[in-house]
């Protein structure tokens, strides 16, 4: 029998591993800072510059932990496990390097641009269009390298982990392309092609599937390789892994609407999301049970081995989060959890528990292997485990507590029928929980620092195994399986079919370019009185996006009595037809703003943006003094109007030439009203634009009094 000798390259795996750990520490540090900013708003430093305020920092945190930490973690796992599972080296070392450096460049660009305020205003898709293109290119490079390796494989059988990696690749490609359809206005500014309800749908179809196919399925692939290897035990039931893989990827795609319950999405779509989210419990728990049962008979090893400890808690947290998530997809539960800290708790159980701990376990296993030396300190790794677990608990419990306290306060009515609590009362009540959460996150980060030290010492003590040589039979396909030689070619051709299928699916994204046009044409306003934003308001909206106001404020009033009484008439789908992008928000750290227009005088907003505590004592909102010095970029008005019109917003033809005049008139009106309240400010400052935008919100449906009574409930 012919033996072939080749090597697995550990260089790329090591690079990705180091990147994972580094960005993990950075991303988590950003999270800790953001958490402390909520507890101690002085840490926004916004009196000095706008770049580190929570609204800009939080997206850097989310992007860092998702794409930099988990992203590099995925690649570490794939570049290590895939060759070994297929008995073939990664197809192209050069592509691997391009992939690596390309991805790290994306991360750096992301951090810089987000802090500078270049953002699309869509969660987990904030990066502007040039970076979106770069992401697509690098993702394709990754895909080619993966497919190439699969084509050249010596092991005919595709282990279940490989299926998870493949499904992740295909779906993430599709999601990224579809959600990133945006109309560029300038090099670093674009507007989402979709608007309002449409945009909300696409965003959360993307958002939940990003959770599914970026945070979950690749890590299931990771688990299916590293857990059995670390335990020295085969997966409990390979058959179960097959069943839960296929059912998981079929069901996950439909769960997205659970982010939009009680919003303006049609009822049947909401129900679809709920039903599929509940069904998702089974395949998810299939994965959890498979992982845990693999350790049957090896629980004594779990006691001794930090790697297994991390894996056990990771898989358990996965099970908890995948039960909690479906529960939160039930409308009655969602009524409590949406916009609250419960969502945050849920996310972090998955992120810190599943993604974090699985990554740590993998690293503690991988470094000794790659450096051919025992782990520097088992004891320290054990300490990390306990610290990390404590961190997760101290993160989640305050958040649950905060969510429930907030809910009961927000919906409380006095016997006379008034709201019992103001929003500020709730903010003040949950402050201690924010402090506790920040401490929990800090503790978790300390554990990560211990890990970095441990792994660094391990690397120093060892000899890096640049290449691992193996000898395998030339083509295992020939010696195994019931198929005879005639089918050999056909079998070899099948991976190409797989590749082609994947490319077709991704290519549909290109075809889909035509569909938004169709969408736009049929996007007839359903409420006559709703009109496009004025040029001044458009600038103001871009400021709202730039400073990340959506990270703390929602713009979607749900049809609950307590919400309608507090915020005004519940939000209708037709109100958002010109919102490119939509800004419904996900969290109410601050109050909902859907009908803030006309509630307060211009001077209130003026003072509030300069120093929120002057109008709302006890506020934790950052201040935005720079808006009073910076000028409205009127040279961009024309391109913004042009972009909006191209997407179907009915600005009259040639309006660009008049837009700045209208802008000036409206700005001067606001400046005049401010002057009446003894405030002197030039009409060309950005604060004027922001005030214009805020005063517009939610006022359109009152314009012709189309049956919308203040405080009326269905």
């Amino acid at each position: 029998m012919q033996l072939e000798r080749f090597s697995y390259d550990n260089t790329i795996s090591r690079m990705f591993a180091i990147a994972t750990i580094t960005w993990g520490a950075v991303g988590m540090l950003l999270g800790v800072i953001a958490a402390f900013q909520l507890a101690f708003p002085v840490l926004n430093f916004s009196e000095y510059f706008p770049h580190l305020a929570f609204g800009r920092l939080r997206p850097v945190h989310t992007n860092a932990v998702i794409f930099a930490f988990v992203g590099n973690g995925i690649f570490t796992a794939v570049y290590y496990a895939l060759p070994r599972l297929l008995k073939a080296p990664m197809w192209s070392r050069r592509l691997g390097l391009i992939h690596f450096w390309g991805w790290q460049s994306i991360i750096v660009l992301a951090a810089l641009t987000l802090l500078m305020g270049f953002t699309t205003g869509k969660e987990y898709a904030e990066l502007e269009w040039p970076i979106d293109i770069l992401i697509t290119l690098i993702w394709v490079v990754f895909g080619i390298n993966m497919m190439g390796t699969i084509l050249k494989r010596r092991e005919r059988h595709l282990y279940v982990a490989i299926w998870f990696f493949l499904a992740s690749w295909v779906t993430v490609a599709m999601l990224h392309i579809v959600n990133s359809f945006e109309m560029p206005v300038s090099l670093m500014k674009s507007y989402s092609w979709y608007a309002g309800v449409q945009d909300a749908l696409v965003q959360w179809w993307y958002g939940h599937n990003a959770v599914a196919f970026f945070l979950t399925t690749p890590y299931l692939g990771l688990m299916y390789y590293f857990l059995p290897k670390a335990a020295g035990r085969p997966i409990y039931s390979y058959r179960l892994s097959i069943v839960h893989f296929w059912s998981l990827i079929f069901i996950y795609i439909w769960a997205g609407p659970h982010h939009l319950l009680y919003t303006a999405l049609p009822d049947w779509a909401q129900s679809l999301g709920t039903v599929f989210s509940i069904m998702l419990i089974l395949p998810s728990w299939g994965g959890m049970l498979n992982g845990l049962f693999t350790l049957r008979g090896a629980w004594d090893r779990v006691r001794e081995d930090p790697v297994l400890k991390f894996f056990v808690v990771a898989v358990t947290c996965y099970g908890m989060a995948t039960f909690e998530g479906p529960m939160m997809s039930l409308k009655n539960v969602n009524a409590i959890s949406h916009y609250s800290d419960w969502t945050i708790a849920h996310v972090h159980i998955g992120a810190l528990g599943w993604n974090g701990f699985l990554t740590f376990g993998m690293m503690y296993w991988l470094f000794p292997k790659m450096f051919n030396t025992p782990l520097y300190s088992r004891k320290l790794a054990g300490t990390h485990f306990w610290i990390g677990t404590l961190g997760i608990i101290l993160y989640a419990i305050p958040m649950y507590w905060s969510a429930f306290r907030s809910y009961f306060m927000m919906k409380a009515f006095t016997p006379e029928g008034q709201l019992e609590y103001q929003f500020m009362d709730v903010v003040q009540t949950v402050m201690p929980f924010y402090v506790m959460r920040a401490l929990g996150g800090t503790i978790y980060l300390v554990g990560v620092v211990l890990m970095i030290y441990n792994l660094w010492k391990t690397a120093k003590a060892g000899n890096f195994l640049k290449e691992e040589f193996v000898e395998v039979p030339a083509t295992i396909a020939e010696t195994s399986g019931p198929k005879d030689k005639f089918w050999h070619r056909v079998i070899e051709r099948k991976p190409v079919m797989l590749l082609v299928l994947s490319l077709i699916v991704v290519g549909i994204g290109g075809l889909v370019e035509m569909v938004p046009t169709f969408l736009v044409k049929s996007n007839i306003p359903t409420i006559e009185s709703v009109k496009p934003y004025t040029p001044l308001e458009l600038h103001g909206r871009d400021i709202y996006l730039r400073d990340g106001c959506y990270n703390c404020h929602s713009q979607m009033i749900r049809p609950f009595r307590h919400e309608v009484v507090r915020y005004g008439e519940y939000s209708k789908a037709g109100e958002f037809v010109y919102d490119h992008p939509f800004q419904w928000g996900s969290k109410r750290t601050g109050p909902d703003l859907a009908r803030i227009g006309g509630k307060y005088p211009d001077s209130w907003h003026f003072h509030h943006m300069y120093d929120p505590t002057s109008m709302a004592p006890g506020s934790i909102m950052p201040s935005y003094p720079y808006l009073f010095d910076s000028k409205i970029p009127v040279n961009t008005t024309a391109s913004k109007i042009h972009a909006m019109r191209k997407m179907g917003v009915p600005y009259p033809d040639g309006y660009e030439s008049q837009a700045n005049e209208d802008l000036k008139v409206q700005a001067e009106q606001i400046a005049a009203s401010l002057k009446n309240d003894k405030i002197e400010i030039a009409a060309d400052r950005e604060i004027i634009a922001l005030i214009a935008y805020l005063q517009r919100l939610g006022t359109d449906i009152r314009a012709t009094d189309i049956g919308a009574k203040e405080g009326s409930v269905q």
Partner: protein
Amino acid sequence: MNVLLLLLLISLVIAGGFLLAFFWSVRDGQFDDDYSPARRILFEGKTGSGKTKKQDN
């Protein structure tokens, strides 16, 4: 609400793609043996990653 159509379409295409991939894998015999793959991955190299025998505990 027409974007629903778009998303349904895309999701169905992806789901359909997965279905085709499933059919391919069954035809290719990927699931003929659901016993050995779990054990096969444990046999690699010589640096102690071999299967731990059940007698060891």
